[in-house]
């Protein structure tokens, strides 16, 4: 009997040990981009789920109860911040029944606090200016340097949550930095001939991208952020493209092509669908592939 008890105890210890060893940090990310970087850093020690999909407008995600099931069991919630998620995340958090991932708690990470932010409005702002983000442009992940900054923040947070795995995360961070650096050198070199080129974008999703690669955004198809194109503004953009000989209109996959195509037909500018987020399309599974694809499409259009 004693032998059986001993065997059972040993078996229990082994099972428990394995369970603890296998326990992954459950990360819920507001969008696919922080999720992708978290997978790079966390490897097999994290289980990452993104609420917003890469082909979805991150401003308008439905706060479905099924997301509550994710949030309830999360160890860490990563948000893009700058009020990108203001329309859908607060009611989810209020109903999540998980106090550990609320703002200010250990399991909450606002990635905007450690990155470079563009387009912070100055002076009086109001909704006559459209759906402006009063804290700055939230599409900062489209700057590869900011991706590294996000990776550092994620590493720090994962280490805080799981100190024992700190060296593992740090090693993967270094690896990510090196790979990002190599990729960035290649991307910048590929884009060098087009430095200073002017483009028109549908929505102000691209200032970080444009700044990093030396492009100039001359105008947007939306008359104001979040406001659908109007005939008079479309005419203005047509004239702008003609006057400034702009070759490319960049748009996100979740917007209607009708107006950009119309502008393209009238001006000869090429309409290019670039993906602003990881997993926006099959094959764009990580941050590197996202930029490889976007830059390749952009270069083809700018040539």
């Amino acid at each position, binding site marked *: 009997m004693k032998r059986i008890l001993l065997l059972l105890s040993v078996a229990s210890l082994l099972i428990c040990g394995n369970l603890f060893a296998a326990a992954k940090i459950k990360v819920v990310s507001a969008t696919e981009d922080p999720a992708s970087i978290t997978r790079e850093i966390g490897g097999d020690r994290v289980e990452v789920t993104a609420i917003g*999909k890469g*082909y*979805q*407008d991150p401003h308008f995600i*439905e*706060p*479905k*109860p*099924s997301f*509550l*099931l994710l949030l*309830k069991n999360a160890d860490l919630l990563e948000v893009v911040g700058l009020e990108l998620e*203001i*329309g*859908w995340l*607060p*009611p989810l958090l*209020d*109903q999540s*029944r998980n*106090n550990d991932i*609320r703002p200010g708690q250990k399991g909450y990470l606002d990635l*905007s*606090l*450690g*990155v*470079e*932010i563009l387009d*912070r409005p100055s002076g009086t702002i109001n*909704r006559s200016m*459209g*759906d402006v983000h009063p*804290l*700055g442009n939230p599409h900062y992940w489209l700057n*590869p*340097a900011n991706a*590294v*900054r996000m990776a*550092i*923040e994620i590493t*720090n947070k994962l280490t805080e949550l799981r100190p024992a795995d700190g060296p593992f995360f740090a090693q993967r961070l270094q690896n990510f*930095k*090196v790979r*990002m*650096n190599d990729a*960035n*050198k290649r*991307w*910048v070199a590929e884009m*060098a001939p087009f*430095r*200073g080129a002017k483009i028109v974008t549908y929505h102000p999703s691209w200032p970080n991208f444009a*700044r990093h690669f*030396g492009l100039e955004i001359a105008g947007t198809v939306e008359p104001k952020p*979040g*406001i*659908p194109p109007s005939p008079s503004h479309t005419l203005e953009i047509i004239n702008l493209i003609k006057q400034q000989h702009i070759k490319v209109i960049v748009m996100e*996959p*979740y917007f*209607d092509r009708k107006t950009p195509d119309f502008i393209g037909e009238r001006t000869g500018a090429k309409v290019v669908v670039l993906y602003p987020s990881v997993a926006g399309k099959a094959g764009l599974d990580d941050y590197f592939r996202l930029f490889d694809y976007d830059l390749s499409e952009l270069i083809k259009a700018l040539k």
Partner: protein
Amino acid sequence: MTARGQLVFLLISFAVVTPLAAQQTIEQRVQQLEKRLDDLSRQVTEVRQQIDQLKSGGQPPAAVQPAEDLTKIETVLPTAATSEQTPTQAPPPNALTDVQTINNVQTPGASKVFNPDISVIGNFLGKAGQVNPYEFGRADMRPTFQLDEAEVAFQAFVDPYAKANFFLSLTPQGIDVEEGYANFVTLPYDLTAKVGKMKAYFGKDNTWHTHVRPWVDQPLVIHNFFGEEGLNDVGVSVSKEFSNPWNIFLEGTGEVFRGDVANVFERRSQNDLFYNAHLKGFRDISENSNIELGTSYARGALAGASNGANQFAGVDVTYRWKPLMQGLYKSFIGRLELIGNDRPDVNRKLRGFYASADRQIAQRWFTGLRIDASDRAVAGDSGARAFTDRGVAATLTFWPSEFSQLRGELRRVHYGDVSRAVNELLFQLQFAIGAHGAHAF
């Protein structure tokens, strides 16, 4: 050579040399212009580079510099740094190997940071068509135009445990606290709780504020059974989420209210409370569609009677379809809500339902159709009798932006007790200012 020959030679030479000289002058001019053009072009390039340099904070463009060394980005700066000293846009460093992360401390207006989110939503209504003395009574018919309601909302965290929500309704009749409750969101055992005045969690429509409802008016079953204000009372609500292996969001809610709801429940004694229970299940069918099922039961002392209970039981079904990539332009919501009412003062049990379909046809355009029918208790000499009202309504909604909407509703209602049908066209303009927190799904 004769003198004539010399003269001819001179003339020929002059004739040949003059154009050559002229040609040489033109070539020189062209060369000068080309040189000038090159100079100007160079100057333009230099100016452009200087502009780029200024825009990028003093650095020459990357075309003439190697890419930033991302491996040198080291740490996130401590967040304690003062915002005044923190640049909002970091100048690119001399060597990209020196790039550091940037500490962006948010600086909301110091003393105002704890003020609640405040919003106001105006609900302007218009009406055209036949006279309708049956909906609210002859003394309270819909006017041609009216600012029906302005909803003023205040929302903020009270402390680490609770969030306060106040919704004041400003109507031509006065100011009323539509809802005012503390929402405890950090309770253990997967619980949340609300304490205060609130809409009872019965079905779907009863929980909606005016600006959330997809129609200008209430469905007949809600109007006839619960009245214009709906089941709304002072009490306590506790919800629990039940974990299950089927990936279904399952939530049960139990509520106890004081027991006063106009024309529905009446508090005749200390124990005449109004109880409500709701069970909700939600499941994603696919990435683009989901279904929600709910069942509700409410019981309280019958208003206007010396004894007897007024009981309601309901079932609600909501199907949603919204393709994620085209979600800005296409969506569909189908709704069905069935409610039964058992009260001892009417000759039979009352029943009612509405079924609706709302289709988004463009980024800013929505159409909808609603069919509804509901029994209504009408007092008579020999006690209350049940009559059935039937209606159909079609809506067209336009959203100028996220913060305003214009809606038209064409409806036909047949009132059972008078056996009359009324055709009306209702208009609605809703407009919001301020920060209005998103409502629960």
